């Protein structure tokens, strides 16, 4: 549904997005990760047709966003950064306005309104003016606006920013649910969200894609992936070091695999060693790797620019 080829955006001398290419099909939820200022918002603004790219092409549902913007925009629902909405309007007024701009009239509009109000739990605030809403309701109102025409493509810029943990959970569930029928791109810098909602994730840094894969594939990039942590009575670092590099963590030992491709063998070997030595095991885990670590290793912090 979304196809991006060699997208470049320059702001004066600064290159905000530098040769980004990817595609998102129906049924995919793509998480867009990256430090602040990495070019996430700029890329999304180019997908939604708000900004023209300096070079490269974006097509949505086969329509080139630069050449036939209206056709492309009809297919897209967009939740802008910090859920910008007309704060002087009531929730109902705002959603009606969005519906009318999307060409929904009469019964179709009422039906669409009913659907998104239910989906985003807005029933209790319909008559309230948007500037009196809490951050969570405001975010959901803006999300409802993006969903009003049941778009095939959904683009969301930090949809869970500023929400409390319960609200975050709800929004992630909603994204995952919607993802089965739509092509979804959303940006975040909360790494758990990748696990909670995405089928695929892209990490972008200084305008370039530095990693692209399923959450598990990304996690496997982590040094930690496949390591075995063992806490056992009688265990010695010396014996374990025969299996791989060992790290001592306050009484527990972490063994890193020598070869990432043979991680299952490492766990097996540790179990055998424990049995042979007769150590009394208190705990043993196989590490999945941490997205945090991958993220930190492949992106530069803001301060390093």
């Amino acid at each position: 549904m979304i196809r991006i080829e060699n997208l470049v955006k320059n702001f004066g001398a600064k290159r905000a997005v530098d040769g980004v290419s990817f595609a998102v099909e129906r049924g995919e939820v793509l998480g867009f990760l990256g430090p602040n200022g990495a070019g996430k918002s700029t890329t999304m603004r180019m997908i939604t047709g708000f900004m023209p790219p300096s070079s490269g092409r974006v097509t949505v549902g086969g329509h080139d966003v630069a050449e036939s913007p209206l056709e492309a925009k009809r297919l897209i629902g967009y939740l802008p950064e910090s859920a910008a909405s007309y704060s002087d309007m009531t929730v109902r007024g705002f959603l009606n306005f969005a519906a009318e701009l999307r060409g929904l009239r009469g019964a179709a509009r009422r039906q669409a309104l009913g659907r998104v109000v239910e989906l985003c739990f807005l029933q209790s605030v319909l008559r309230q003016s948007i500037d009196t809403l809490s951050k969570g309701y405001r975010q959901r109102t803006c999300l409802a606006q993006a969903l009003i025409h049941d778009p095939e493509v959904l683009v969301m810029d930090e949809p869970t920013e500023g929400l409390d943990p319960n609200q975050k959970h709800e929004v992630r569930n909603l994204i995952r649910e919607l993802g089965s029928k739509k092509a979804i791109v959303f940006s975040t810098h909360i790494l758990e969200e990748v696990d909670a909602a995405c089928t695929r994730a892209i990490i972008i840094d200084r305008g370039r894609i530095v990693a692209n894969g399923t959450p598990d594939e990304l996690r496997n990039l982590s040094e930690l992936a496949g390591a075995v942590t063992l806490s056992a009575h009688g265990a010695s670092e010396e014996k374990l070091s025969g299996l791989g590099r060992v790290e001592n963590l306050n009484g527990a030992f972490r063994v890193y695999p020598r070869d990432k491709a043979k991680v299952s063998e490492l766990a097996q070997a540790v179990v055998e060693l424990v049995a042979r030595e007769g150590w009394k095991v208190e705990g043993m885990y196989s590490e999945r790797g941490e997205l945090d670590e991958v993220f930190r290793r492949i992106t530069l912090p803001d301060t390093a620019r």
Partner: protein
Amino acid sequence: MRIIWTIVKRELGAYFTSPVAYVFLVIFLLLTGFFTFTAGNFFERGEASLAAFFGWHPWLYLVLVPAVGMRVWAEERRSGTIELLLTMPVATWQAIVAKFLASWLFLALALALTFPAIVTVNVLGDPDNGVIAAGYLGSFLLSGAYLAVSCMTSAMTRNQVVAFILAVVVCLFLILAGFNPVTDLMVRWASPAVVDTIAAFSVVTHFDGFQRGVIDSRDLLFFLSVIGFALFATGVIIRGHRSG
């Protein structure tokens, strides 16, 4: 067309859900009353016309119209809703025209509420109502020209105060270019052709005809082209922001 109407409705609604509209209407009506009857010597003139009323409009609008127009784009940019609006299936020109029309309709409403002036002059004497109608048309076009300029300056910045000041400066130029004390000064050092050319850019020159009851196609064309040009420039400015 429907898209434009949808945006016009929203914009008009936005005026009336905040106190801005009411404050503006009250101040506008108080000032027109003051200028017409006190400063304009309406009664001492002893003539059944609204010359005292319309004569002040270029100056009155100078302050009041930018106050209406300053928020049009600056507020959208400040709050980020411009991103929402322009990623809807709406062409930029539709959004520009719709926002302009909504504010212009609001100014038309303010102008319409001055109807007691017409009643007064008709009760007291026997005015030429055709001249009054032409005056109203001219005043409406004048407010449209100022408003289009205000929309343009509003698109330049996300700060409404800056938009307001810029609009006042540009509109002041549009007045002064044909304002008699200024043209009298210019005659001393410039040839009459130059002075006339400069004065031709002035709203005062073109508003004069309407006040006398003459609807000249050149004056119509002048106001409409100021509006057209300013809105076109608004489009260029907005496109400039979007391409970064």
